[in-house]
């Protein structure tokens, strides 16, 4: 698969986090003035149990190069059992994504508590740097440019559209 190796590639990392633990942990990292890559875009959910696998799919489809899903440690869920359900769900979903050909190195799950500002920084930095090494995620972007043969007109404009994604 060819892609132009961009020297200025800045990975887009989408993080789906739970309000009560990871979001608070990220907040703590901020108030403690810890430095970490600014590539992460944080999406706040009440609980990891609310995170539907289809959100992860959509994130990749809309241009995310890496996705992080993070919540409370098992046993500490604000809603008692949300993260237990999420744990099972994601164990299954990542196998499906892997089977379809998505590189699981781009998808990271973690438990980060409200006190673990340092862990948040570590997890985000690790994922960002790993994805930076891997390069942009082109699979879904290239897929989005394909049409059925009957609806295809011509390709020069499509190449331009690719660069805009």
């Amino acid at each position, binding site marked *: 698969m060819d892609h132009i190796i961009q020297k200025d590639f800045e990975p887009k990392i989408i993080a789906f986090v739970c309000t009560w633990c990871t979001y608070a942990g990220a907040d703590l990292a901020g108030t403690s003035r810890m430095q970490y890559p600014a590539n992460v875009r944080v999406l706040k959910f009440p609980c990891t149990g609310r995170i539907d696998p289809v959100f992860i799919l959509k994130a990749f489809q*809309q241009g995310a190069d890496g996705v992080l899903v993070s919540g409370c440690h098992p046993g500490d869920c604000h809603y008692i059992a949300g993260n237990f359900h999420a744990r099972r769900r994601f164990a299954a979903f990542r196998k499906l994504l892997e089977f379809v050909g998505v590189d699981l190195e781009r998808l990271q799950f973690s438990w980060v508590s409200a006190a673990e500002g340092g862990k948040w920084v570590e997890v985000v930095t690790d994922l960002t740097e790993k994805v930076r090494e891997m390069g942009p995620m082109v699979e879904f972007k290239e897929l989005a440019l394909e*049409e*059925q*043969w*009957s*609806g295809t*007109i*011509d390709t020069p404009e499509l190449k331009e559209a690719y660069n*805009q994604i």
Partner: protein
Amino acid sequence: MQKYISQQNLNILLDKLIAEGTRVVAPRMDAGTPLYEPLKNSGEMLTDQLPRRSAKEAFFPVCEEIMSYEKERQQITLTDVDPARFPETVLVGVRPCDAAAIPVLDAVFSWDYKDEFFLERRKKTTIIGLACTIADDACFCTAVGLSPSDTRGSDLFLTPLEGGGYACETYSDKGETLINNHSGLFTRQSKTKTLPLAEPQTEQIDLKKVKKWLDEHFEDPLWDGNAVRCVGCGACAFVCPACHCFDIVDEGTEKAGKRRKNWDACGFWKFTHHASGHNPRDLQPKRYRNRIMHKFKYYDDKFGQTLCTGCGRCVRICPVGIDIAAIVEDISRKD
């Protein structure tokens, strides 16, 4: 005037067209499924299998962009698709059941609204039909007034000959032009016999009688009896050469997206779902009734044609074995 083209010359013709940049669409194998698709070279063309989908998608794509939008701050740019960009196409190896459906579709796409997406593609396409030497028990073209050698819809029609090669006959200016542009590849028809043509085992159905029954039996237990097994997918409508319903959707993000014309089917429960929440065809019998009515009555009422060419694709792929030929035969036997 009848001409002759050998298999080798046909391959040369197709390869020449491909090299010139013309899109040559013919039956070819795609990941194990025969489909009408653009050829990379003449060697890919299949002549012994009916493609799973019909040739209508050369004019009426499975999905096509008709407009795109971009939003930069408050600035919105709309870009229409330019029909001038539709490629020049030669459709080759089109079976009579597929070719005959195209003039039938012309009627609805040039009715009260001239659908430029369909009509521009039509203008730029030359259709080379091919007679059938094989049929199976799902084929029923003869029942609806067609045959394995019907030339309706074809600009140029090929009939396979004993010993190889094809007799060809032109039926339009486009066909004439194609032959004239490549006259070296066509010779005068020799006296070779054609290969025996397929013989679908169905008797001609009295379509007028069927229509009359449909006119008078909007309510009838036949609909419940047959539709109870229909699961409401769109497989029959999508593989059909004559079905032509579509949905216009806007898909994308806030920043950019496209308006598209995608295939739709009257079997889906949402097909007649109104914005108010009311759905006049809320149960499957009503939807299945619509399918038969549209094909054998409504289209005739409007355009004087039957919306079915007997290709049998719906019969072969229906998940629950609904056999439209059997249903119509049943109706034709009622008093």
